[in-house]
């Protein structure tokens, strides 16, 4: 199938228009981040505590907020999580009074008091297999004797917990009964000594202020380091003006995606930094392919003016740009739709980033390379020496 046969668009003609559009979009994003405080830092960078909770019955979010507020924590962020009807919530609280170990010790007792008011004994939804085994061993409902008790009840406990793992939470004893290897006697014993609380803690993250600051610093170092590393690589492989063009295009992609990310309110965490670095890699990748063609065309003839050269190269690589961009956009869309809540922010960055990255390889990278050339000349001798040192390919 042919996507485009010998395309010949004048991409460079409208370069001022596209650069203006991009600059305005970036400004809108930065405005959101810096003046509206839109960027939603997760506990990785801001510090604080994040609890992932699953409830048996859907709680009222306002009541939940009120409850946590009365436990002494204002400014808690409460979001739904997971699929519709899973009754899963994320509760994120900031650092309280410089405490390093977080707010779980405040939030969980408050939740227990409200949602499990008459809980006595052990909550089967809040313990794990070793504790469950320790409960059954001294009672020995299956009558296996002290010799075999530990092995036997560890097996039983693991089977019960595997059952809970698939559900996240036991909401009735019928669900407990389905666990393999759990005898009626053992079930009766559990019903006597434990209860089914009405919520479970699926996950907990706590980051102290100090560690949050360190993670922030490492994140910035990673992004800046990667950008500088790529600029250097392109400078060595191509010419400085192309390095500048590619870096401007990449910076452009990062800023636009960051702005949209902030406006959409996704949580900014370590995984997001990973997503942005991948985006940087992809964006440069995309730009490099075009510049590679420019370099090839340059070797064929030095006489053509840069504008024509850039246009020609963009057109020659256009169908590749569309095809690769297309598959990657498709795949990140799938990741966004089906990858689950934990990975959604990541997939968003990739999805938006690849679209913007494809656009910028055409409309941003080349105009900046041209601009740099007009202002500062062709760029360092270093680049040209590097290009000339490579064995010239036979012209066909």
């Amino acid at each position, binding site marked *: 199938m042919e996507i485009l046969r010998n395309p010949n668009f004048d991409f460079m003609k409208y370069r001022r228009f596209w650069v203006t559009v991009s600059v305005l979009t970036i400004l809108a994003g930065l405005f959101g981040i810096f003046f509206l405080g839109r960027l939603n830092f997760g506990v990785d960078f801001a510090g604080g505590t994040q609890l992932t909770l699953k409830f048996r019955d859907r709680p009222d979010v306002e009541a939940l907020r009120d409850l946590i507020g009365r436990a002494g924590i204002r400014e808690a962020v409460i979001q739904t999580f997971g699929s519709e009807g899973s009754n899963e919530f994320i509760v994120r609280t900031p650092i309280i009074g410089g405490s390093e170990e977080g707010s779980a010790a405040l939030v969980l007792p408050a939740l227990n008091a409200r949602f499990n008011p008459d809980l006595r004994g052990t909550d089967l939804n*809040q313990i794990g297999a070793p504790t469950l085994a320790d409960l059954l061993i001294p009672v020995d409902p299956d009558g296996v004797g002290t010799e075999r008790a530990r092995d036997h009840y560890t097996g039983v406990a693991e089977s019960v*917990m595997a059952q809970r793992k698939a559900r996240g939470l036991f909401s009735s004893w019928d669900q407990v009964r389905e666990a393999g290897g759990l005898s009626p006697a053992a079930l009766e014993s559990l019903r006597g000594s434990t209860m089914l609380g009405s919520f479970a803690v699926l996950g907990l993250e706590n980051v102290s202020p100090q560690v949050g600051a360190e993670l922030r610093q490492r994140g910035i170092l990673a992004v800046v380091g990667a950008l500088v590393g790529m600029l250097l690589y392109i400078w060595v492989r191509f010419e400085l003006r192309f390095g500048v063009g590619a870096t401007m295009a990449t910076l452009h992609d990062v800023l636009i995606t960051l702005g949209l990310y902030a406006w959409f309110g996704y949580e900014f965490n370590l995984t997001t930094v990973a997503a942005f670095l991948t985006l940087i890699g992809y964006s440069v990748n995309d730009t490099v392919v075009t510049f590679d063609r420019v370099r090839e065309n340059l070797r064929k003839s030095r006489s053509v003016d840069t504008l024509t050269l850039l246009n020609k190269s963009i057109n020659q690589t256009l169908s590749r740009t569309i095809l690769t961009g297309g*598959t990657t956009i498709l795949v990140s869309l*799938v990741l966004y739709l089906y990858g689950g809540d*934990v990975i959604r922010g990541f997939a968003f960055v990739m999805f938006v980033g690849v679209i913007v990255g494809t656009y910028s390889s055409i409309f941003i990278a080349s105009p900046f390379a041209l601009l740099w050339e007009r202002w500062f000349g062709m760029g360092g001798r270093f680049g040209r020496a590097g290009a000339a040192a490579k064995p010239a390919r036979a012209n066909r």
Partner: protein
Amino acid sequence: MSKSLLWRLGLVVALAALAAWRLWPPGETINLGLDLQGGIHLLLRVETQDAVRAETDKDMDVLRREAADDGVAGIATRRLTDTTFEATGFAADRLAAVEKVARDWLGGGWDWERTGAGLVFEMEPANERSIRDGAVNQALQTIRNRVDQFGVAEPLIARQGLESERIVVQLPGVDDPERVKRLIKNTAFLEMRLCEYPWVGGGAPSRQAILEHYGGRLPEDVEVYPEDERDPATGKLLGQTFYALEKRRVITGRDLRSANPSRGQLGQPVVAFMLSADGARAFGEATGANVGRGLAIVLDGKVVSAPRINSRITDSGIIEGNFSDQDAQDLVTTLRSGALPAGITYLEDRTVGPSLGHDSIQSGMRAGLYGSLLTVLFMLIVYRLSGINSIIALALNVLLIFGALAYFGATLTLPGIAGIVLTIGMAIDASVLVFERMKEELRAGKAARAAIDAGFSNAMSSIVDANITTLIAALFLFQFGTGPVRGFAVTLSIGIFGTLFCGVFVSRVLFDLLYANRPRAAKISI
């Protein structure tokens, strides 16, 4: 078939077989990250100033006691900071004698200065460093013991850097996170001390009551400790009572030879212990001389129980308290592993419950499957038969990525799965670059084989440049990332090498296989 083609084909088949063999049996050869299989990641700080302060306290006692033995009685010592203390209350002409005691008994770890009132001691920096260092190492060992006893498979417990006060603990697959975190953090400093007031039979209702007993001022050799009163059924805190105990410890946790969970006379959970030879001698002397008096069992600064000494006890006994079975079991675990030399603060705590990880794997795998199917479809539509070529290369790429993960023992994390899904999208880029180039060459009138040659060699530099730039990003990510993000960087890097190999080498082999015997073929299904 040419010799070089045969050789290259052999290499591809061998690598595929190697990867498949590394991956067998499926599902057991790849390390899953904590975010996928559930578990705990902890970064903790050992509060080493606790250990430094304890050392200062100990040396103050040594100085006072040894000086008294040498005839300088009544020295008063007072700690000024964690690393300094002053000694006063002796006549100026005894200064030299006290200094001699310091030289002989303080082990060279202290500098001191004469002041008007006496001496001010300051810990030498090297001594302080070694105390801090020792405390971290001892904490590391203690935590290892505790985790081992709890039976966690493949734990990672390591100091973060050589000089650091931080310890990283990673416990995959733990489904009882709160209990394990308590177990690790428990200082578990056990001591037994004789009761001063009340002499026997339970605590005083308040601190005030004890002060009144002593006429408003506590004697030098006495300290007050609280005991929590809890409701036996719910464990709710009801109130506190207080004991005045001798400062001298009869025995501490270090004197234990063993500890085991057991049952008391009423069937309640207790901890039975055996003492070492030295411990048994001290215990025997103290209990023999104090029959009828209370003996307080103090754990981490709180009285657990204070039973009456009924007769001389030498090498074994029980610890009673308001324990549940689990409490008794955990106390045994901590007693066996020894006390922590200092307190612990959790700086970073990431606990992933098993069901959260379970959901993540499912959605990650589903996204991967759909992504691959769409890509396959896309390539077939756009490149027809040549699309099959790229699909084989892609499948091999995924196989090699997983094989390499298994081979290097790398960890697959949720962002790592996302990385693989993305690699699927981006690996196609190599094929697209080559195929588009071939189309151009065909349009320029080249025959099939020449077009294949030109397509690969001309696309090569683009492919290499493009992938190296992504590799640069991955390296920085690996350097500065932590946990799951690091797993992502590893997967991404492996994916890049896989892409280069499959997109360039394997794909070329496949084309050569097809067209090797048809030197004059003019058309490629592309």
